[in-house]
């Protein structure tokens, strides 16, 4: 299949996915399960990456600001802007594309090759809606929570650097964090996160859903899902930045 065929096939699948669920009670139950799988299970990795990312960003900023004309509080300011605008929404979404995307593609792919999706279809159930929609909604609801959590931990990581090194003082850092803060930057980060969440879940689910073959194909689709959703995240990052910040 070429790019145009994939795009068409993806759009057709989305038409099936984005419809009213057959049973709202079952949908809610699945949504809670998915929030657990997509969201809570990712808290650990997001926490570790965020803290270390915050520390590294802060140290690198401090090392690069060695002019006496620039106040040390700029370290906190720069770290905050980098974390909120780019590192947390984009890098964490890329990490989630690897973790959640591969899991979705292999889960749905395995259901396809073991005829579980056929079983749903024979029962008269819209399998795409039943399997994919809860994942999409769960990610779109919970990924912003993960990103807020990531921003908080990254900034905390920077604070640890201030506490345990002599690069700058905690006071400088906090002053920088509070300097010229615009709430819109967080809003921008959350918009990006929601779009990325949609891309990760739908592209990965699509890769799993269209599988033909066996176990080998499941592995291959999982890799393709991560690669394609990562590329789309980078592409949409540019588009959204252009749209929202210029």
């Amino acid at each position, binding site marked *: 299949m070429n790019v145009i065929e994939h795009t068409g096939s993806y759009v057709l699948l989305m038409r099936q996915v984005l419809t009213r669920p057959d*049973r709202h009670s*079952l949908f809610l139950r699945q949504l809670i399960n998915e929030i657990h799988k997509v969201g809570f299970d990712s808290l650990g990795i997001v926490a570790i990456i965020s803290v270390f990312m915050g520390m590294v960003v802060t140290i690198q900023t401090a090392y690069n600001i060695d002019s006496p004309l620039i106040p040390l509080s700029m370290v906190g300011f720069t770290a905050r802007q980098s974390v909120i605008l780019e590192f947390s929404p984009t890098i964490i979404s890329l990490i989630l594309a690897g973790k959640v995307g591969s899991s979705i593609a292999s889960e749905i792919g*395995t259901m396809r090759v*073991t*005829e*579980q999706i*056929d079983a749903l279809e*024979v029962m*008269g159930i*819209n399998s795409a809606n039943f399997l994919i929609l809860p994942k999409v909604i769960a990610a779109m609801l919970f990924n912003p929570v993960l990103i807020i959590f990531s921003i908080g931990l990254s900034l905390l990581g920077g604070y640890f650097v201030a506490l345990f090194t002599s690069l700058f003082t905690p006071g400088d850092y906090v002053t920088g964090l509070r300097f010229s803060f615009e709430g819109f930057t967080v809003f921008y980060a959350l918009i990006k996160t929601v779009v990325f969440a949609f891309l990760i879940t739908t592209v990965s689910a699509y890769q799993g859903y269209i599988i033909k073959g066996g176990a080998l194909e499941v592995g291959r689709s999982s890799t393709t899902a991560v690669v394609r959703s990562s590329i789309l995240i980078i592409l949409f990052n540019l588009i959204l930045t252009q749209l929202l910040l210029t």
Partner: protein
Amino acid sequence: MIKADSIVKQFAGRIVLDHVSVAFEPGRTNLIIGRSGSGKTVLMKCLVGLLEVDEGEIYYNNRLFSKMTAVERRPVRQELGMLFQGGALFDSMNVVENVMFPLNMYTNDSRADKQKRVDFCLERVNLSQAARLMPSELSGGMVKRVAIARAISLNPRYLFCDEPNSGLDPQTATLIDNLILEITRESNITTVINTHDMNSVLQIGDHVHFIHEGKLWWQGDKTNILDTENSELNQFLFSTELTRRLKKN
């Protein structure tokens, strides 16, 4: 009754089903037999709507199923149970949840009523003791029996079984065959079974359809299948040493 009228299915220009016309009657086990690649799985997938036919019509009790939209098909599909070759149990659900799944989707019964129906279905397939097990903890025969329990949970009018005893030992295969036969008789279900197991043919073949190279080559029942003059069918039937020896005797 299920009727397929002159159906044609092709993949990338290769004809897999060539004007096949078949009729499956209620209360009987209707077998579709044929070699691997003969088109019998494609025929079954067309019958249940997993594949769309290129030509011809499929009727479920005079309802033209093949021309219905997905929404129009839903009431028909609720009358339909299917046993897949590998069982196709949902990995994330235990045995009870698998059997209860169609009830959760399509009934407004109370939890107690649904549980009662699940207990009955599991009892019917002799699996009451396995109610809380996950699919990964079941043997091949148990998977098939749970799949049968799930297929009959909504009291289907039509039951489709795709190679129900593939990968099973002869004793378990016989048990599954008998179970399908009993359920068919009890509830007057129209049962369609894909198989290439000769034991099944001779044991439960109320009506047998032989598909060869995408065409309906022969039809009859278990009493006259061994006496047929059809050369292709004979080649299929007597392809093993065991069946050849049986024929000699």
